[in-house]
């Protein structure tokens, strides 16, 4: 996999998640950040920091991105959400427009 096809998402506590750009684009917010014209640091360095999203939640979000791609291509598996994560995940989803 080429480096250009990957993006880096950084959680509030500094953990870095390197994922497929295609997966990250499931989020409308990330898509806008990465594709907006001009020289934003996000666009250039292909990384986005989320000071409000914890590592646990960001990990779950990344899992969701991949699950969503799979689902769109017709593969139906269940995406399990632990009830204690629901609130924070919901807010992150709201922020990320995913």
């Amino acid at each position: 996999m080429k480096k250009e096809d990957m993006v880096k998402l950084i959680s509030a506590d500094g953990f870095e998640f390197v994922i497929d750009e295609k997966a990250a684009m499931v989020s409308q917010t990330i898509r806008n950040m990465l594709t907006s014209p001009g020289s934003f640091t996000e666009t250039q360095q292909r990384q986005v920091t989320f000071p409000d999203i914890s590592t646990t939640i960001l990990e779950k979000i990344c899992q969701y991105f991949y699950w969503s791609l799979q689902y769109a291509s017709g593969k139906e598996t269940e995406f399990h959400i632990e009830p204690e994560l629901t609130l924070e995940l919901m807010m992150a989803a709201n922020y990320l427009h995913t």
Partner: protein
Amino acid sequence: MAMKSSDLRSRIETESELIRMCIEAATESGNAVEAWRRQRRTLERMPSLLAGALLHRLLHRRLLFPSLLEVFKHNVEEIDLRGENCVDAEWMAYLGAFNYLHSLNLSDCYKVNSAALWSITGMPNLKELDLSRCSKITDAGIRHLSSIPSLERLCISETGVTAEGIMLLFSLTNLRVLDLGGLPVTDMALSSLQELKKLNFLDLWGSEISNRGAALLQVFPKLSSLNVAWTKVTKLPILPSLAHLNISNCTITYLFKGEGDKARLAKLVASGATFADVCGALSNVETSLVSHLDLSNAHIDSFYFLPHLSSITYLDLSGSSMADDSVANIACIGAKLRYLNLNNTKVSSAGVGILAGHVSNLETLLLSFTFVDDSALPYIGMMPSLKAINLSSTRIKGSINHEGSDSAAVPSFLALKDLTNLERLELGGPQIKDAALFPLSSFHSLKHLSLQSGILTDESLPHFSAMQNLEHLSVRDAVLTSAGLDSFSPPPALRVLDLRGCWLLTEDAIFLFARKHSKLEVRHEHVSMSLSDTGGSSYLYPSEATSKTSQSKQRQKISLLPSRFDNSALKSYPSKQRQKMTHDRSRLLETDQRLKYTREELLALQFSSTLF
């Protein structure tokens, strides 16, 4: 207003799959709720719409209880508890602590009484309160409400409030919408509300106001919507800002009499009203501005006022004395007409002929229970914008016998084939035969087809299979057989199949059909609907509930000649039931030739099948 935010709420859920899944997971069970309900700081930070969506989902899943309400008090702005009969004083005590609440709907919460309203006194941001049909709320409750000056919208229709309680509302000077429907509002009570200068919507249906009270309505300068249905009002004064008026079931002598400009009404509902002289009564209405007129079941002496309604788009004359000789009055204002309801009138095909060519924008034409017959169909075919037609309970047969040639009957539905926008067609009549339906299979835009005829048989079914866009098919009271249903391949987009009154179908046949086409909702007397699944509207048996979730969209594929009973499907039934089905199979082969039987014999057959 309340609608707007609940729309937003449902949009949040539909737009974001992840949010929807989170809400589902969070409200899966009482244990799931326990897993997050102590995350107070997160709950406090939650955006209002998300919190609202979560709260309402909990409510629908019966997981919401008073003390759980507390976690939402910092952010929820709108709560809709319509018809929740668990809501009582304890709920109200918690709701009173919602600092940001601006809309609260408690309609039909019958346990909410006057004392319970004490909890919400002094709520700083409450603007909308709906207490409709909370019959335990009396004047004492209204006393509590008078301490919420921020109220802009108050609905207390059909509560226990009396005229004296209504007088207490005078202090709520920010009120814009006031619904007092079904309350004994007297002329005096109305006069005490004169200070509500911002009022633009007032509902007084079924009240005790008379013409004297009606004359007082002039004190509300912004009044734009008024309902005085079922009252003794016979005359109304000039109300310059009025746009919507409902005078249903009133006896009207005149409207808006006095000096000044004519009333600029856009919508007039006078269903069941009696007019001694309708032209005179409407003489002070700027008729060229009226776009919506409902005169259903109204007692009207003439229709000569109709030609003045030059911008009318919605016209309901159902159940009125409209007949062919007055149709010309509709034809001359037909240019903008989109909706025309002539159900239950004396209009016949000749009348429809007068309309043809004058109603180029008409989208909905309702002619059920009229004298219309097949000769009207060519005229209807000349109305190019039609989307919905109702011809049920008319004399339509679906074929025209040309004079002279006694054998060749021409299918009359062919006349509708040029209506390229037609989405909804309702036909019904005792004489519609299978053969008459073949033109329907070329109506590609049709989404909703409804047929009711006692002589339709299995041979009607193949006509429907080719209708690409058909979503709702209703074939009622027909003599469809189980074998016929089994070999029917539903059109690809079909969602609902209504077979009510098809008395020959057996429970098993419907069961198997529903199994084979799991995306379909089948309606029949033998089918008990699962009410819990309101959103999905897919019909399923309890045993299938688990497999349904894993069914993929591709399963929609339907073979043209389905194997009648494959054994693997049968294995899943208990042996007794299996026996019954195999028995049915042999019986089905016999009934395939049902046309040999008389109706009595068929009835006997159906009876015998229920015995097994």
